């Protein structure tokens, strides 16, 4: 599997957020986006997920221009927001995600959420909500992970869990693109740093 991006550019409103982005990823590889706030990391991830249209450039999977429906089913996107509903319990939330992602297996919550299965999400801390959001990554197998600042609000143990998860994902042949301003020590990861493109 290869995921290739060539000459990608994105404009939001009047502002050019980034341009001339090119990279290529193979099975088991990780790409880290680093850069200051507002440099376009999140926009790039949204473009790669197909949530935003690119201004120009090509996105290819195995050498072919991506078909949006196929692309959606092979990726996991973890955005800024946890996408959790305060009205629901942890188990109900996981169940909804399983339905949305057409995952088949009944999901066992991970990340130290086992005891919180029946707890209302209203009473979870920011870090616990983030862990819950990370549990989406195991609802369904997907070869391409797009993670936007996944370390936010996570404690030390949570960060280790996430790194473990990425490691397992790589061993299984998956690829991950991670935007972070913390820096994440993942051995052998490619780096793409955003200086912030001025229009």
């Amino acid at each position, binding site marked *: 599997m290869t995921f290739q991006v060539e000459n990608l550019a994105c404009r*939001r409103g009047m502002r050019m957020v980034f341009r001339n982005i090119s990279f290529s990823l193979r099975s088991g590889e990780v790409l880290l986006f680093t850069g200051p706030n507002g440099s376009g990391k999140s926009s790039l991830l949204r473009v790669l997920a197909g*949530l935003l249209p690119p201004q120009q450039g090509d996105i290819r999977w195995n050498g072919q221009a991506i078909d949006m429906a196929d692309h959606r089913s092979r990726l996991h996107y973890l955005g800024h927001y*946890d996408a959790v*509903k305060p009205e629901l319990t942890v188990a109900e939330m996981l169940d909804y*995600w399983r339905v*949305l*992602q057409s995952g088949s297996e009944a999901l066992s919550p991970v990340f130290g959420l086992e005891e919180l299965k029946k707890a209302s999400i209203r009473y979870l801390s920011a870090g616990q909500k983030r862990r819950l959001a990370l549990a989406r990554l195991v609802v369904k197998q997907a070869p391409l992970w797009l993670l936007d600042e996944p370390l936010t609000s996570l404690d030390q143990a949570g960060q280790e869990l996430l790194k473990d998860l990425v490691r397992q994902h790589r061993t299984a042949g998956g690829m991950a693109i991670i935007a972070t301003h913390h820096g994440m020590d993942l051995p052998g990861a490619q780096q793409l740093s955003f200086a912030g493109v001025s229009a």
Partner: protein
Amino acid sequence: MTVIELLRHDLRLQMRRPGEWAALVLFFIAIILLVPFTVGPEPELLRRLAPGLIWLATLLMSLLALDRLFVDDARDGTLDLILLSPLPLPLIVAVRLAAQTAMMLLALMLVVLPAILMLGMNVIVLPVLALGFMLGIPVLVLLGGIMSAVTISLRRHPAMLTLLLIPFYIPALIFAVAACDAVASGVSPLPHLLLLAAMLALLLPTAPFVIAAALRNGQG
């Protein structure tokens, strides 16, 4: 199976917001309650105005209820997951609209009888009013769904939804109230109800697709 699970989720989410629905129900009652103070308490006048007033209160209530149809999901990131779901987007949208319709009909069931008593509405109008709700509420929800999806990228301007919706609501309002007036004056309400049904028949198969397209392209 998927449809049932989606529907259960949407309904459950609404059921867990009793405060919001209580506010809507009270809003409806408040409008009806205030009418005699504004137009005067003559029973004959109130009886004649009753269907129109009930529909007006329904419409205002639905404007408030529909405001949040997709906005919450857009704010908390759920909309991204919905857009990335392998399930057909129009299906997810249709389920959401069905849940909203069911909740609105349920809320109306609670308030319509007190409203009828307060205004002294003629009882023979009741079946036509109920039929009008069955046909008209889905129309309001489908139109509201289109507008709230179109305005999703204008999240900072909530008034836009109301401004855009009112012209489209007017035909539904006219037919629904005319049906009630017809039966009250001994004429057949059928033509008006059929026109309302025609609006529903037009919107039902098209609106979910329009909404899906608007949500997909509203991500700028």
